[in-house]
């Protein structure tokens, strides 16, 4: 038997790049390979007769051999020859981590992806990346499930008929060759910061100078950039330093939540809020917003205001600060509030920060630039950087495309990514217009609404399947490495564009590598490998801050020209915490992740204040009809305490008709009433339909009932009584019938959660779900109270029901030293480990549920039905092989990621039987927490961070008075109110 052709499998870094990473078809179709294969595997070769199975087999073969060099492979079903030498650094069963990049809103976050046997199973933040710092948002984590989405776009489709890429190429190459100058060619692209895609775009536009490149994303930061254009005369991207700011005022900007594409603001903000000693400072946050966001939840002072009234607050603030008076007679009832905030901001001039959200019109952003200038914050807490040349507002570009389409000026339309039919303003009626285009080509990950109206729908690779790059907000190039060969026949955007336009490089790897290789310093190969390893190209220059002075005159003019707020009920459009703009609609983790404020799952709703609800005679669960302009959509009402009056908020990304089994028909389409005039908010009307619509919440009661659960104080009170949290209850001495364990020896695991920095963003919930193979149960089961999340974020309101404050309470198994669940289990399926873990022996569990009844924290989750039943074979690839999948009838709960503890223990043992170091074990929730609010470690080690936190005055255990002796403790919540507003 001949040995395996080394050029096919042995891929040293010095070998020719073409051999290193081939596209499947190319590799699989070389005659050499086919010939070798035929001789090597005659029984498989016989299958070559059947075209379909030949393709499948060759693909699998090619994939496994092609990936062998990267040690990332999907194992083929047929027998393959083992290598005579082991693969370097590969230990079967041990996961490997690779750096890559996740892009949202065109901004990159660096990731580290855990791969088991060549399949990505867990997404974590890349600690080397300046915008991740080790954390990943809920969306970034859940994007893993999009990879294994069984309903993805898989194959090229021509008008609903499955085709091959060859068919497309046969059609496309002559077609694009005959386009001439490309006058009737349009590219509609999801905005991207990818330099390599930009290079291919450059090539495309130089080949077709008459073509137009339109960028559109339904949630963008255009108003902020346009605001800079007004204030500074040039389009600029704004950057905030939340860490440096001592007083922050946010104008309708959910910078801790959905309005930030990365988690960096959370990191910065929480660093400025963390109080671990009396000396620690804590910033103060003022928030003005219509709907309750997680940012509003963290506010020390929150002013609920209609989105259209935010401008008045901004103008009044500028006036109070002694700046320009732009308000022409308009008044605000919040004068006292604004005056106090203004005074506070002024007192911290240069160290304060006023920010405006993407939903606010450009003039407000321009005004905010003036405010920050007035406060001396420009260059301190606020910086501006240049945006790519030729920037134009996306909506403007899209309107122009719509006009071109209507006029029949477009003969060839290439849509790269996105789902414009669903996400574009309804008044543009893109679906009908797309149908008129003679040649329309869509490249999309989803088989979506747009795919239904184009001629060619091509599958796009998931970002974990292909090479790419993107820039972080500060311009740091972030490399996107593939973790797995494309599961289906997808191609990346640059790959397709290169194919259509005859770019010099064809394969994504070449496109990306050649983009960077030449510019790398020193030993280029080494620098390239380092860039891949680190996930960033460190040597690349960062975007330089632009120093400019805002033009007050221009700002004033723009402000005066603002469209006045209309009559009627204000309708606000928000990104949804679950589906975002629809890209996570078919993602079960995100659908089931409770919306942070309302705890709503599997739906969106029209949020409205109690007063507005009363005025309209509406209750939660009433189905409303919302009309904006001529468009209408049904939407269930949900009363949100703290919402602005005479205003409703609806979130995008629901009511999908074509996305897959998870997302089809979930919720209602807010986009149906989103017009280019009312893109972020506008006036509309609300009518009752008389029908009811069931909503599923994971939490139904939002009052703490005066119980000392989340213990909260003002910073001032804390300074006088640092141990206030400890005095909330009396903990009686425990008299036990049994000898109590002392837990003195070895590692004793514990967790401290800082309630002061936790923003309640859901990142831990999704991280835990991914790490621990936690099933998704669906809307009906959530309504029955059977959600399975091991960690949940309880949300409590306090004070005035119309204008409450909120606190978030992360709750997972508290690992009680004296655990009530353990004594009552008849079959000893939940027992204590010597290291203080309350462990589950799933195999022993018979499911009496007695433990759950006796758990005062209600953190135990029971598999009422076989929740893993509907997971497809592809979906199973997302499972963490280190954690068993629980069957129905079994109780489960948080176990402090015991598999990670075990892994660290093995590593420590192999490393000379040393004890596990502090920080060596990070639970999934701790690892990803953007606010670093969760600390896990050995409480027996006096030097560990957790031991120090546990010694703090603010440290307390929830329900400690029951003598459960929880291992998870909490640091009390603090607020830093302005004494003038107290």
């Amino acid at each position, binding site marked *: 038997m001949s040995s395996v052709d080394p050029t096919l499998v042995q891929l040293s870094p010095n070998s020719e790049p073409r051999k290193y990473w081939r596209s499947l078809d190319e590799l699989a179709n070389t005659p050499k390979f086919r010939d070798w294969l035929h001789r090597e595997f005659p029984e498989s070769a016989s299958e070559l007769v059947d075209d379909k199975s030949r393709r499948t087999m060759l693909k699998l073969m090619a994939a496994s051999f092609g990936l062998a060099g990267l040690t990332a492979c999907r194992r083929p079903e047929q027998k393959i020859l083992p290598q005579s030498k082991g693969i370097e650094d590969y230990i079967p069963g041990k996961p490997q981590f690779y750096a890559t990049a996740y892009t949202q809103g065109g901004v990159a976050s660096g990731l580290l992806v855990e791969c088991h046997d060549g399949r990505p199973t867990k997404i974590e933040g890349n600690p080397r990346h300046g915008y991740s710092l080790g954390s990943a948002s809920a969306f970034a984590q859940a994007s893993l499930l999009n990879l294994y989405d069984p309903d993805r776009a898989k194959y090229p489709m021509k008008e609903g008929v499955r085709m091959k890429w060859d068919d497309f190429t046969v059609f496309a190459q002559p077609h694009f060759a005959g386009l001439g100058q490309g006058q009737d060619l349009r590219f509609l692209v999801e905005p991207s910061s990818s330099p390599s895609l930009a290079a291919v775009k450059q090539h495309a536009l130089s080949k077709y100078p008459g073509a137009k490149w339109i960028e559109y994303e339904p949630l963008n930061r255009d108003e902020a950039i346009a605001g800079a254009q007004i204030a500074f005369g040039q389009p600029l991207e704004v950057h905030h330093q939340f860490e440096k700011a001592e007083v922050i005022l946010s104008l309708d900007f959910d910078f801790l939540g959905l309005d930030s594409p990365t988690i960096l603001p959370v990191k910065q903000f929480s660093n400025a809020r963390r109080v671990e000693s009396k000396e620690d400072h804590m910033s103060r946050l003022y928030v003005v917003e219509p709907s309750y966001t997680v940012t509003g939840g963290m506010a020390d002072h929150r002013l609920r205001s209609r989105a259209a009234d935010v401008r008045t607050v901004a103008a009044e603030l500028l006036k109070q600060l002694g700046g320009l008076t732009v308000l022409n007679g308009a008044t605000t009832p919040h004068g006292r509030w604004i005056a106090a905030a203004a005074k506070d901001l002024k007192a911290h001039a240069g160290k304060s920060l006023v920010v405006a959200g993407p939903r606010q019109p450009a003039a407000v952003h321009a005004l905010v630039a003036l405010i920050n200038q007035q406060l001396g914050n420009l260059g301190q807490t606020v910086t501006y950087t240049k945006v790519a040349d030729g920037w134009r507002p996306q909506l403007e570009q899209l309107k122009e495309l719509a006009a071109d389409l209507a006029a029949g000026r477009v003969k060839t339309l290439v849509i790269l990514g996105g789902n414009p039919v669903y996400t574009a303003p309804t008044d543009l009626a893109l679906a009908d217009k797309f149908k008129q285009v003679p040649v329309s080509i869509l490249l999309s990950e989803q088989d979506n609404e747009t795919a239904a109206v184009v001629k060619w729908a091509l599958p796009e690779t998931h970002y974990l399947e292909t090479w790419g790059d993107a820039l972080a907000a500060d311009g740091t190039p972030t490399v996107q490495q593939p973790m797995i060969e494309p599961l289906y026949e997808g191609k990346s955007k640059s790959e397709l564009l290169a194919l259509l336009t005859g770019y010099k490089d064809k394969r994504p790897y070449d496109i990306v590598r050649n983009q960077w290789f030449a510019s790398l310093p020193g030993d280029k190969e080494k620098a390239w490998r380092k860039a891949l390893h680190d996930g960033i190209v460190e040597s690349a220059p960062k975007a330089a801050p632009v120093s400019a002075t805002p033009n007050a005159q221009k700002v004033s003019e723009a402000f005066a020209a603002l469209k006045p707020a209309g009559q009627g009920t204000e309708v606000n459009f928000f990104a949804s915490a679950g589906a975002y703009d629809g890209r996570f609609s078919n993602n079960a983790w995100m659908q089931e992740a409770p919306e942070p404020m309302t705890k709503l799952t599997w739906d969106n709703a029209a949020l409205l204040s109690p007063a507005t609800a009363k005025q309209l005679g509406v209750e939660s669960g009433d189905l409303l009809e919302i009309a904006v302009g001529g468009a209408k959509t049904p939407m269930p009402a949900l009363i949100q305490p703290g919402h602005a009056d005479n205003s409703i908020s609806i979130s995008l990304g629901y009511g999908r008709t074509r996305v897959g089994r998870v997302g089809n028909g979930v919720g209602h389409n807010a986009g149906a009433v989103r017009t280019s005039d009312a893109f972020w908010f506008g006036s509309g009307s609300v009518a009752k339909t008389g029908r009811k619509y069931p909503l599923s919440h994971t939490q139904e009661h939002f009052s703490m009932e005066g119980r000392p659960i989340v213990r909260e104080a003002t910073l001032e009170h804390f300074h006088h009584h640092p141990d206030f949290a400890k005095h909330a209850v009396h903990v009686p001495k425990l008299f036990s019938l049994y000898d109590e364990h002392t837990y003195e020896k070895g590692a004793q695991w514990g967790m401290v959660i800082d309630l002061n920095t936790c923003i309640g963003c859901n990142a831990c919930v999704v991280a835990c779900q991914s790490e621990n193979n936690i099933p998704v149960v669906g809307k009906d089961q959530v309504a*029955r109270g059977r959600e399975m999340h091991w960690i949940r974020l309880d949300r409590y309101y306090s004070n005035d029901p119309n204008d409450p404050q909120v606190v978030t309470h992360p709750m997972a198994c508290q690992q009680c030293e004296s655990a009530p669940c353990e004594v009552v289990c008849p079959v000893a399926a939940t027992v204590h480990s010597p290291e203080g873990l309350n462990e589950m022996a799933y195999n022993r569990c018979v499911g009496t549920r007695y433990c759950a009844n006796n758990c005062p924290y209600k953190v135990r989750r029971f598999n009422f*039905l076989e929740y893993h039943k509907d997971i497809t074979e592809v979906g199973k690839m997302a499972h963490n092989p280190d954690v068993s999948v629980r069957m129905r009838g079994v109780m489960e709960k948080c176990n402090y990621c015991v598999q990670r503890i075990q892994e660290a223990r093995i590593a420590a043992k192999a490393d000379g039987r040393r004890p596990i170091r502090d920080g060596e074990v990070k639970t999934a929730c701790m690892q990803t927490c953007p606010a670093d609010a969760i600390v896990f470690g050995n409480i027996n080690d006096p030097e560990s961070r957790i031991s120090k936190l546990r010694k703090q005055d603010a440290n307390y255990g929830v329900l400690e008075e029951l003598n459960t002796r929880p291992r998870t403790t909490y640091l009390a919540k603090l607020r830093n109110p302005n004494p003038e507003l107290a």
Partner: protein
Amino acid sequence: MADLALQQQLDPVNPPLVLGERDYHGITKDVAQIGEGKTPKQWYIAIGITASITGILGLMLLYLVVNGIGVWGNNSPVGWAWDITNFVFWIGIGHAGTLISAILFLFRQKWRTSINRAAEAMTLFAVACAAIYPLFHTGRPWRAVYWLFPFPNPALDMWQNFRSPLMWDVFAVSTYGTVSALFWFVGLIPDLATLRDRAIANNDKLRSYIFGTLSLGWRGSAKAWKHYELAYMILAGLSTPLVLSVHTIVSFDFATSILPGWHTTIFPPYFVAGAIFSGFAMVMTLMVISRWALNLQHLITMKHLENMNKIMLATGTVVGYAYATEMFIAYYSGNMYERFAFYNRAFGPYWWAYWTMVSCNVLVPQIFWFKKLRLNIPVMFVASLLINVGMWFERFVIIATSLHRDYLPGSWGYFRPTPVDMLTFFGTFGLFLTLFLAFVRFLPMIAISEVKGIMPHGKAHAAHSEVAH
């Protein structure tokens, strides 16, 4: 009927317990003939209905095992709901039987004789119904079926957790079931022998074979009677603590937990009183029907019924007192969680369950202060039904309302039963009634020998029987 009432009125202080002109033979005939004669059509109709209902139970349990507990309404936080409610309900029903046969026997309460056999049978059937739930309420009953029994087995590879009250339940209920069955059977032996003798006389081969086997060679000799009565006494002595222990231990499921509303020391006596209360109500329901259907008014007299009403009045009042005590202690403890749990019972989302419970269990039995109502059969029949409804609600209130709102308001929830919950419970009545119908058809539902023992001697031999004894 008027005649019988007259007899009772003649001696209001100590009325005769057997009415009418019956001698020993007459008693034997009255009771034994129920099973010997041609099976009435009504019986077939009745058992046809109840067996169908039992079939529903079987289907529901099959559906449950195939799909999982999720077919019920149980959720988080309400991990137990109708399952354990029904378990405690049926176990409670069983209490009257043992109480009547054991405790009243030891206290020489002669009036027990005509109802004890049926009450004991009812106990066994109720325990059978109850036993369904501990097994089927588990998520994986195919494992629970042997893991819950306390022997070290290779699958578990260790002992069960003897600190768990559920483990104690296994002991308590199985012991109770075993002793009750034994006691019932021992009591049956002389009567089985009577049936055997009558079958031989009637030349009924099958019956003589069956009853011959079951009566264990009973000959009715004085020596046998001596041993028998001693054995019966010992079993009564053994059963007596069980009456108290079973429901005490069942109450430990709740009392030893840390859940507000469960964690109370009052539970053992409160549960036992409630169990006797509900048991007597169920006996009353069944006896009112049986004496009418089987013409046993002269054996199950107004005296019996009145005594049972008195016991219901007493135990109902004890239960009411327990409710009041719970409320007071919750207030007096000063513990916010306790206070809330009881406030929530009365005024929370399940207020209707609480007030149904209080009305049925505390208010309804108060009517038995009035002799006229104590002797009114329709009134006591309706009252007994209402008491059973109330006692079911008592268990539901304790279990579901305590669970649905406990310590952390963020995890509060609500329980709604599903049709499967309801049909399963409905099905257990089918099982219970099927067994009871079979019992009245095939076995002497009144203890012949014991009733004879309390008859005035002069009457007993008015006419001589052809059958010995």
